[in-house]
């Protein structure tokens, strides 16, 4: 039977249309956020927005610094917890565990990604927050609690992408290294990880994106005070929390200021992605 040849041109055109639609939607959202957020930033001054320490929307004081610092702190904390744990798990599962164990455990880690964030937040509120309050002091709702919860939440992303990029390293590198008398661990540290570096960085970037964008779980354990946190045990409010907490009743310039918060978040994520990509490219030495 002779099947009719698909019309390549038609297929190309329809795929192009779909792709353009997706890009257009993205562009429209971006434009909308900036259109809503920028005027109020201009009116009250960019400097006041970015470096003002007081967030009193009813008094037209829109200082976002506590939230910017809050977002960066909990993201940093999440990475400090999630990256070592995630990389260690990925290295163990790819290089040191039996194939059977690895095949068993990888889906388990991926299942962690499917748990809704509100459940993480609830668990944090029930167990982690009281634990911190009783053992370390402070109100328990804190930078530390948010960092730990986020650190756990980004684990599946980091583990699963790290596993893929470590597996993508050709076995010939490992053989070459072992044949020169290197131990397994030396091989991993000196050859496999450097060879997998760009993939590992990509995993960390995605994890970072998830941490900085997470809202629900953070609101539940972070305490949400719009002040610069004095320590890891002090409550904190992130940029995303700021929007979610106040959007229900905000109107007028207050509502625009929340969009401005979105603009700041957008720009921060862009800068972080750019820096991480730059670092990955530089270090891979090519």
């Amino acid at each position, binding site marked *: 039977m002779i099947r009719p040849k698909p019309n390549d041109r038609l297929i190309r055109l329809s795929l192009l249309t779909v792709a353009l639609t997706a890009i257009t939607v993205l562009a429209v959202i971006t434009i909308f956020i900036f259109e809503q957020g920028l005027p109020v930033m201009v009116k009250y001054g960019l400097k006041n927005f970015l470096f003002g320490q007081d967030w009193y929307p009813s008094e037209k004081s829109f200082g976002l610094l506590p939230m910017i610092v809050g977002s960066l702190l909990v993201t940093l904390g999440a990475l400090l917890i999630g990256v070592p744990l995630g990389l260690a798990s990925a290295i163990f599962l790819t290089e040191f565990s039996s194939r059977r164990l690895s095949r068993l455990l990888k889906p388990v880690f991926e299942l962690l990604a499917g748990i809704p964030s509100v459940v993480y937040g609830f668990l944090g509120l029930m167990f982690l927050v009281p634990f911190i309050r009783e053992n370390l002091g402070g109100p328990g709702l804190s930078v530390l609690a948010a960092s730990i919860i986020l650190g756990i939440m980004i684990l599946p992303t980091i583990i699963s992408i790290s596993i893929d990029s470590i597996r993508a390293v050709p076995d010939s590198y490992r053989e*070459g*290294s072992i*044949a020169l*008398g290197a131990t397994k661990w030396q091989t991993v540290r000196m050859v496999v990880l*450097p060879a997998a570096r760009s993939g590992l960085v990509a995993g960390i970037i995605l994890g970072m994106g998830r941490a900085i964008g997470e809202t629900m779980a953070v609101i539940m354990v972070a305490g949400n005070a719009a002040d610069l946190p004095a320590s890891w045990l002090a409550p904190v409010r992130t940029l995303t929390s700021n929007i979610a907490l106040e959007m229900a009743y905000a109107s007028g310039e207050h509502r625009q200021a929340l969009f401005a918060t979105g603009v700041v978040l957008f720009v921060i994520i862009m800068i972080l992605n750019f820096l991480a990509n730059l670092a990955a490219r530089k270090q891979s*030495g090519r």
Partner: protein
Amino acid sequence: MTEENKEMSEIIAHQNIIEVRSLSVFYGQFQALKDVNIDIQARKITALIGPSGCGKSTFLRTLNRMNDLIEGVRTEGWVIFDGKNIFDEDTDLLELRRRIGMVFQRPNPFPLSIFDNVTYGLRVHGQTDRALMEERLVHSLQAVNLWDELKDRLEANALCLTGEQQQRLCIARVLALGPEVVLMDEPCSALDPTATARIEDLMYQLKQKYTIIIVTHNMQQAARVSDFTGYFLLGELVEFGQTGQIFTSPRDRRTEDYITGRFG
């Protein structure tokens, strides 16, 4: 050199560096090597020929115990290197692989700088003396005729080199560790004929100082470079002897069939 000394060095030169006795290797149920006996002479080139899947590479990878990495592998027999069976429990595998280096079929330089590639072995064996590393680097790159080409770009990534340069670099990486034996698993199969000829020249130079065992599919290559040749068929070492004898008057009918091209 006095007569006695000369005789002495002759004896040393003809010493067996590796003696293999009753070596059998199994992958699960499959027997890849059957009762192999062979003596490898020091500072000679020994070529192993035979059709694909007949145990040549398995044999080679047994000598530095790289086969240990394969799941379900079982080994019987003895490989005596420097008076000791390498399968003894107290064998220091890392030291064994330092003394018996290996060059692979496809050039496999690490995605690191040229400097880091050549000094890799030294670093994993705990060497931190930068001056010594640089000295070894120069020597081993000179030994593989790469020094003049690469001395100005030691920090460049090794993956930017040509296939032939990469394979030379892989040989240099082994030489930097000061091995006694160099195992080569079809080192030229990924190279073009001119590059192959130059690598063969290199082997000829290297045999002044090192014992070389090479697995090759290319019978002309075996005839050109080697002093001794072994013919493997279905896991068995059918015939082993001086290369000239194997190629001109093989004793076994199967060897004759293979080298005359009637089989394989």
